[in-house]
């Protein structure tokens, strides 16, 4: 350790801040996870990490801060994520860069590496996926590579945790050493020009933090910041003609009028050289790779789309069929829990709060955990195998007709899980118009939280054999409606030229069970946590609003009536009537009655109207509200007290259809609305979205209601 350092700055001397950089989908986040036991989201497509994330951990005597940056193919500002990475690397303070590269595709990955090497920052290269490279018979001579490019190159595998310690040790070693001389050589004409500029800077003793070579390269590449800095210097007048000549010389050499293209070719030539030296590939693979074989079927021009639809259909069938098995037990458990806990509480109000409020509300939400888990597994598989990009490829032509970008598919599919990450992942779209359009459409992809409502209503109105198909139909028609809405918006609000579509198709990977388990577990725990906190709170609020104010006169008048009633059934009927009238004059009843006229054309009673309004907070609240309202409303039939039965008894088929339609279309939830506003960039977009979705939901529900009425 450097003594001077530790004296001047004893506290931060042992702190290393690492910027983790690499091309998309090389396993940066997975590497952080295996280094630090963090749990960052990983998937097999470019654009999983869209914002920088910091992870802290200790190793030996050092505190590490690792900043996971979004993947970028090169130093460009094409997409928002690329801009995040570029800005961070150029402007922020960090000690060292770990450049993660995919060992199975070294040449392509070195494109970014070579740009990093010109930055005069300390760099360590992590040759990731070295286990996969071994399998493909690709052998990288890491020591020789280190010698060639002048920075440490460490073979690692994030998946098998191979070489992780060596990597961190190399980072520490590099951090402590003062030597930093990456060896990146350009072609002769470029080197000549660099030498001339360096000579000139040296002659005038130009003061600079970066090396002269670095300044020269930046000038030649047309780096705006370097230009701005030198522009105010007296040497500029002499330097400018030198630069113009130099650029012309290089452009001529590359037969191009674009200096950036010329430099890209320079880097590519250097990389080809490195790769030719360090890689030994034992057998030349001429036969088709597994990925190509799978692609022959999955992206077949004729069968590709039907296969995709079949996968989706199977997913929703499974969601319903398998999800239904444990539901009975969960339902029974909460029933038992309510009875058991209820019997220990003396006070009527508190008992009602706990049993009818919290347990009924939370229970109604927890009931759907099995369905949610299956849906999440499906989405995790889609994300981690690499199939997602294939679907984007298949559907781009179709999407394009509706004015959407093929890559919009990725946020849209994510939207089936949860709208919040979907809004975030829309950042992979470069064009603001495309991004806004996609943001507006994401809500049409029914998120996991809406699934409970669908399962509830599908279970109440359709036979078990049909319910899975109904679910599939709901999701598909939501998606188609979204596409239509996209077309309308594209023709009206978001007019403009189409963005190009250039996207990497990653190699297929067999997702590890651990990874899937982990992703699903995290998401499920989040759902449960939400059920235990936010939803429980909302259920309590709904309970309070539906129980107060008490109406003594009403209670007393019924008490007399019940007293007088002769048979037990009459007493029960009267009790039920009392409960109903009490509910109707409660705060919630008042809200419901007030808004009922608005929803009457859709066939909703006041309870459904209230559920829709509370659903603005979160879609799970719709179910818990219905749970509270119908359990308070009381069932005459004691044996059949499940929510499904209450709904099929109290709600007409047509109203149910209209209700589903509204749920499909209107705002996802409060949290998603906040993220939407942030991603869209202005609060006005939120009001547009609110108006747009509400109007569409109302109109579509009205149509659906009347069509359903006609057929029943």
């Amino acid at each position, binding site marked *: 350790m450097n003594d001077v350092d530790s004296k001047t700055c004893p506290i931060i001397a042992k702190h290393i801040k690492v910027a983790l950089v690499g091309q998309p989908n090389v396993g940066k986040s997975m590497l952080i996870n295996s280094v630090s036991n963090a749990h960052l989201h990983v998937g097999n497509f470019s654009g999983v990490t869209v914002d920088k994330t910091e992870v802290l951990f200790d190793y030996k005597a050092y505190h590490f801060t690792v900043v996971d940056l979004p993947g970028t*193919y*090169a130093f*460009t500002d*094409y997409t928002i994520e690329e801009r995040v990475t570029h800005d961070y690397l150029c402007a922020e303070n960090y000690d060292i860069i770990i450049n993660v590269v995919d060992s*199975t*595709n070294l*040449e*392509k990955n070195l*494109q970014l590496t070579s740009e990093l090497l010109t930055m005069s920052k300390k760099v360590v290269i992590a040759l990731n996926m070295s286990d996969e490279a071994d399998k493909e018979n690709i052998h990288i001579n890491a020591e020789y590579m280190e010698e060639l490019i002048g920075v440490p190159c460490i073979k690692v595998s994030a998946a098998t945790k191979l070489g992780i310690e060596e990597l961190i040790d190399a980072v520490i070693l590099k951090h402590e050493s003062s030597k930093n001389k990456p060896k990146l050589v350009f072609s002769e004409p470029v080197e000549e020009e660099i030498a001339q500029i360096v000579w000139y800077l040296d002659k005038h003793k130009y003061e600079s933090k970066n090396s002269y070579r670095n300044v020269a390269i930046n000038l030649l590449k047309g780096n705006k910041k370097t230009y701005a800095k030198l522009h105010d210097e007296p040497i500029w007048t002499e330097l400018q003609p030198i630069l113009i000549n130099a650029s012309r010389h290089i452009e001529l050499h590359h037969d*191009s009028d*674009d200096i*950036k*293209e010329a430099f*890209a*070719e320079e880097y*590519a030539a250097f990389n080809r050289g490195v790769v030719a030296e360090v890689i030994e590939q034992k057998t030349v693979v001429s036969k088709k790779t597994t*990925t*190509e074989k799978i*692609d*022959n079927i999955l*992206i077949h*021009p*004729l069968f*590709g*789309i039907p296969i995709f639809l079949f996968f989706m259909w199977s997913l929703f069938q499974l969601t319903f069929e398998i999800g239904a098995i444990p539901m009975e037990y969960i339902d029974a458990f909460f029933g038992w829990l309510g009875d058991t806990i209820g019997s220990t509480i003396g006070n009527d109000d508190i008992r009602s709060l706990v049993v009818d409020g919290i347990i009924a509300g939370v229970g109604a939400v927890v009931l759907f955990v099995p369905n949610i888990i299956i849906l999440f597994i499906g989405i995790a598989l889609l994300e981690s195998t690499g199939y997602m*990009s294939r679907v*984007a*490829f*298949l559907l*781009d*032509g*179709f999407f*394009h007709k509706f004015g959407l970008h*093929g890559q919009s598919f990725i946020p849209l599919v994510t939207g089936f899980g949860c709208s919040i990450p979907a809004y975030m992942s829309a950042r992979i779209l470069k064009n603001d118009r495309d991004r806004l359009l996609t943001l507006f459409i994401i809500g049409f992809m029914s998120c996991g939280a809406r699934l409970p409502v669908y399962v509830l209503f599908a279970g109440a109105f359709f036979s078990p054999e049909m319910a899975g198909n109904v679910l599939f139909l709901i999701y598909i028609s939501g998606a188609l409606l979204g596409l239509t809405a996209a077309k309308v918006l594209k023709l009206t609000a978001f007019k403009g030229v*189409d963005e*190009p*579509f*250039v*996207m*990497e*198709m*990653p*190699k297929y990977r067999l997702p590890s069970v651990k990874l899937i388990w982990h992703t699903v577990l995290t998401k499920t725990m989040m759902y449960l946590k939400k059920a235990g906190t936010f939803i429980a709170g909302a259920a309590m609020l709904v309970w309070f609003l539906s129980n107060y104010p008490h109406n003594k006169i009403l209670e007393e008048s019924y008490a007399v009536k019940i007293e007088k009633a002769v048979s037990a059934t009459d007493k029960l009927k009267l009790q039920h009537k009392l409960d109903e009238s009490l509910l109707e004059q409660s705060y919630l009843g008042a809200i419901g009655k007030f808004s009922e006229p608005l929803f009457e054309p859709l066939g909703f009673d006041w309870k459904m109207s209230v559920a829709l309004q509370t659903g603005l907070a979160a879609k799970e609240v719709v179910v818990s509200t219905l749970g509270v309202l119908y359990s308070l409303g009381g069932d005459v039939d004691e044996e059949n007290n499940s929510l499904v039965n209450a709904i099929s008894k109290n709600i007409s088929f047509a109203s149910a259809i209209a209700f589903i339609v509204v749920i499909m279309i209107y705002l996802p939830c409060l949290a998603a609305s906040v993220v939407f506003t942030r991603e869209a960039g202005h609060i006005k977009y939120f009001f547009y979205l609110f108006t747009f979705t509400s109007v569409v939901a109302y109109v579509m529900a009205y149509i659906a209601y009347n069509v359903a009425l006609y057929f029943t």
Partner: protein
Amino acid sequence: MKTLKDCNKYCKVKIIKLNAPKDLKQRFISFGIMKEAIVEVLEHAPAKSTIEIKVGKMRIALRAEEAELIEVEKI
């Protein structure tokens, strides 16, 4: 002038020029689609609207409109 759009499945060609606007050209280059690069057409999406190509070891999807901007020659 032959462009990548005119290539059939499994056809292998060399890129000789990128006629794309500046931004898109950068995008192409960052994907390795640049002069001298060898490209193989792997698959066409329905109606040939989207094309899957292979550059080096990387598989890339792009639209027919973009493929039209890439000038190629037979090898």
